């Protein structure tokens, strides 16, 4: 699993990449009440607004960690947005991208680097 400075995680599974927000982000956002996932088939470049996560507090953008096309979204979040808080790096995944270039993930942080990054915030 790799991490971005915007607190997304990305997990490579073959040609595709599963994406969500980190436990750190989920805790900082507080109670998630709504997730607006990307549309199936949508194509994103790294850094594009891809989805929106709304907590009681505020709406926050989720950015594409790599270039790719959306091949699946987590339909369960529509009725159970609290999964993002309960299991942010598992059941609370947002979407699956077909990576345009799998090597893009190499530039992202590993868990140790990400933990150090969060400690510095």
């Amino acid at each position, binding site marked *: 699993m790799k991490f971005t400075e915007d607190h997304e995680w990305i997990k490579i599974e073959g040609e595709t990449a599963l994406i969500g927000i980190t436990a750190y982000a989920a805790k900082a956002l*507080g*109670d998630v*009440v*709504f997730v607006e996932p990307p549309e199936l088939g949508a194509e994103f470049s790294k850094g594009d607004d891809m989805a929106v996560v*709304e907590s009681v507090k505020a709406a926050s953008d989720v950015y594409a960690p790599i270039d790719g096309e959306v091949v699946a979204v987590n339909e369960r979040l529509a009725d159970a947005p609290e999964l993002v808080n309960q299991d942010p790096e598992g059941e609370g995944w947002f979407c699956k991208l077909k990576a345009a270039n799998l090597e893009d993930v190499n530039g992202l942080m590993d868990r140790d680097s990400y933990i150090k990054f969060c400690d510095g915030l």
Partner: protein
Amino acid sequence: MVPFAGYDMPVQFEGVKAEHLWTRDKAGLFDVSHMGPCFLSLKTGLRPGDETAHRDIAQLVERLVPSDIQNLKPGQARLSVLLNDQGGILDDLIITRPSNTQKNGSLYVVVNGAVKEQDWALLEDKLGDLLTLERADQSHALMALQGPKAEQVLAKAVPEVQDLDFMQACEVSFLGHNMLISRLGYTGEDGFELLCPAEAAVICAEWILSDERVQPIGLGARDSLRLEAGLCLYGQDMDASRTPVEAGLAWTIQKSRRSRADFPGAPQILNQLENGPAARRVGIKPLGRAPAREGVQIFIGDKALGAVTSGGFAPSLGHPIAMGYIASEYGEPGTQIDLDIRGRRHAAEIVALPFIPAQYKRKRKTKA
């Protein structure tokens, strides 16, 4: 912590939702020291026991607000609005007549933190020849204790609070410190605001928080609580472009003032009272799960009819809620509307305010 109105303010402690529900169920302590408490007094001096001294200062303040200040009883507080010459709202404020008639000729006024400097400059500019304004925002802390257990908690140290009705205030000794306690708030719950000398603020806050029924509450829950209660946030739900009639605050203009028609913007406001405003503040219930926040446009079909001014998720109700302005003819509860959230239409409905019934303690019977 976040910067807010020039102060570092806590957004949340345990979490917005948990703090919100705790306040509705038990009691929450809010540090609202960023607000603008001040005392106004006649330059010619107080006149202990003299009713005409209250009348004199009330008449001066009434030049800037549309509420009846003259008929305030000792210890009575009233919500009002500062108006510009077009009847636009410059701020909302609470004006309290001291409970002690020895202080006739003075008023306690609390304005919003974000605009306190300009409010006070306006008061100085318009009334400074005749009134002395003593700001109390540096010398004092302002705390709010809100929720169904607030009275029981506070009464352990200050039994006098049990005798206060909603919108009444008294001066008391709390842990040996002089304090001005008002029975009001910004949550829709029963509760109190305490103006406390700065040097006593920490000890008083710690005493209150030592009660297991009390938790500290941040700005996030303060916002969700007031939104459920249908209460306006200045700068969002009202501003200088809105009159009290449009903002649903016509009730702050008592009959006596309507008949005297002597407040700023009276022609515009009385005309709106007679004929109805073009737009008005309404409650909005999104029918799906997507919260509609400030700036979301309201449509019926292709017609843009207004915008959301405050919105979010209502923890006590379990669904999103919002307030906004809509063309008056579409403002009836039950009207079906669409909200444009990030380019997608979401169905919603106009609903009556408040979203949850207020729990204020009114007309307490005297104990035998």
